[in-house]
C-alpha cells in the first residue's frame, strides 16, 4: 500500500501583482483577475533555481512528516521549466537534501508532472519505502512580459510543492489513479527554446472535457459519487477552469481547494502547494475521499484517489 504522509511547499517572497504586471503586458489588472482569478503571483529571485525551490519544499515536507532525508527510498521531481534538460533538477534536489545514492528521477512534464509523480510513487513505495514527490517551477523565466506574451505572462508564477508517499503510514491511502496521454495534441502546450508556447483556447477546450471525465471514470470504478469526495485538489491552472470542472462533475465549487488568486499558475508545483495549504487547514484524520487531478503538456492528464487511512 501507499499513504499520503505529508505535504510541503515553498513560494518565493517576491509578489507580482496585476497592477505591476498589467502595464508591462498591456492588460487591465481587473481584466487579468476576471479571466484568470489571479490577483498576484510569486517570482523567484535571480539566484534561485528550480532545484533550490524544490529543496526548500522538500525540506518543509520532511519536517512536517518528521522524516529524515536519509530515510527516503526515492525522489521524483516534476518540472516543465528546469534550467537544464539533462541532467534535470532531481539529482540536484537529492544532493541538496544531503543524499548521494538515493535514486532521484525527473518528470519533465509541465502542470501534470506532480500528479504523475504521485501515481508512480503509489506503485514504487511498496518497493522502496518512502518516495518524495516534488513539483518545482520557475515559470516566470518561460514567459514574455510584453504585450505579445500577455496570454501566458498573466497566468504563471513560481513555486514548489512536495508530498511524501509512505508505504507504511499516513493520513490517507492512495487507492487508485488514472493517467492518460494524447500526443496528437502535443503542440497546444510546449516549451520552445526558453519560452512557453500555449494555444490557450485549445488547452481549455481539452482540459474542460478531459479533467471531469478522468475524475468521473476514477470515481465510478471505485463505486464513489462525486458528492462523496471531501476535497478536490486540482492543478491551479485558471479559476474559471476549476469552476467549470466543478460544474462538470456536479459538485459545489466549495469542494475544490483554490489558491490561484495568490500564486497564479505554478504549473506542476501548483497541485502540491494547494494540497499543502489544504492539509495545514485540515490537519486531523481524513474520512472523506480526496481527489487530485491535473492536465498539462504532452498532453497528459489524470486523477488520483486517496481515502481515509483506514478505508
Amino acid at each position, binding site marked *: 500500500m501507499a499513504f499520503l504522509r505529508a505535504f510541503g511547499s515553498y513560494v518565493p517572497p517576491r509578489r507580482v501583482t496585476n497592477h505591476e504586471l498589467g502595464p508591462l503586458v498591456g492588460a487591465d489588472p481587473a481584466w487579468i483577475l476576471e479571466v484568470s482569478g489571479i490577483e498576484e503571483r510569486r517570482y523567484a529571485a535571480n539566484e534561485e533555481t528550480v532545484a533550490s525551490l524544490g529543496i526548500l519544499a522538500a525540506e518543509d515536507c520532511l519536517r512536517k512528516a518528521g522524516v529524515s532525508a536519509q530515510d527516503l527510498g526515492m525522489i521524483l521531481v516534476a518540472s516543465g521549466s528546469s534550467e537544464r534538460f539533462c541532467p534535470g533538477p532531481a539529482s540536484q534536489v537529492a544532493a541538496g537534501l544531503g543524499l548521494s545514492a538515493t535514486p532521484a528521477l525527473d518528470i519533465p512534464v509541465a502542470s501534470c508532472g506532480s500528479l504523475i509523480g504521485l501515481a508512480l510513487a503509489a506503485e514504487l513505495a511498496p518497493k522502496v519505502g518512502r518516495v518524495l514527490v516534488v513539483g518545482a517551477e520557475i515559470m516566470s523565466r518561460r514567459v514574455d512580459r510584453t504585450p505579445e506574451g500577455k496570454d501566458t505572462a498573466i497566468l504563471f508564477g513560481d513555486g514548489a510543492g512536495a508530498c511524501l508517499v509512505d508505504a507504511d503510514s499516513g493520513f490517507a491511502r492512495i487507492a487508485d489513479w488514472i493517467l492518460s496521454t494524447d500526443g496528437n*495534441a502535443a503542440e497546444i502546450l510546449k516549451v520552445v527554446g526558453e519560452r512557453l508556447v500555449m494555444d490557450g483556447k485549445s488547452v481549455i*477546450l481539452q482540459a474542460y472535457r478531459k479533467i471531469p471525465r478522468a475524475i468521473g471514470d476514477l470515481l465510478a470504478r471505485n463505486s464513489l459519487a462525486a458528492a462523496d469526495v471531501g476535497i478536490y485538489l486540482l492543478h491551479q491552472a485558471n479559476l*474559471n477552469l476549476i469552476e467549470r470542472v466543478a460544474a462538470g462533475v456536479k459538485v459545489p465549487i466549495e469542494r475544490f481547494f483554490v489558491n490561484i488568486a495568490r500564486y497564479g499558475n505554478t504549473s506542476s508545483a501548483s497541485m502540491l502547494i494547494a494540497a499543502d495549504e489544504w492539509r495545514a487547514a485540515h490537519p486531523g484524520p481524513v474520512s472523506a475521499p480526496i481527489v487530485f487531478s491535473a492536465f498539462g503538456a504532452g498532453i497528459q492528464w489524470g486523477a488520483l484517489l486517496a481515502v481515509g487511512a483506514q478505508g
Partner: protein
Amino acid sequence: VETEARILKVLQSIKGTTLNPGADESLFESGLLDSFALTDFVGGLEDEFGITIPDSDLSARKFDTIRKVAAYVAAKAA
C-alpha cells in the same frame, strides 16, 4: 445558410445578445468568443446539431469563424 443561422443562434444564446459577425470574421479576434465561451459554444453546437465533437477535434482553430464551423458541422453530419 440555414446551418450558419443555427450556428449564429448558438453563439447568440451564449452571449445573450444579438450578434451578426461576418462569415469569415474571427470570433476570437473580434472578442465574441474567449476561452471559456468557446467551451460553451462547442457544447451548444453539439446540442443544436445533435453531433458529438470528439476530443481529437477540440482545436480552437476549427471554431474560429462561422464559415469554418459550418463546414465542420456539415462534415460531421454527412
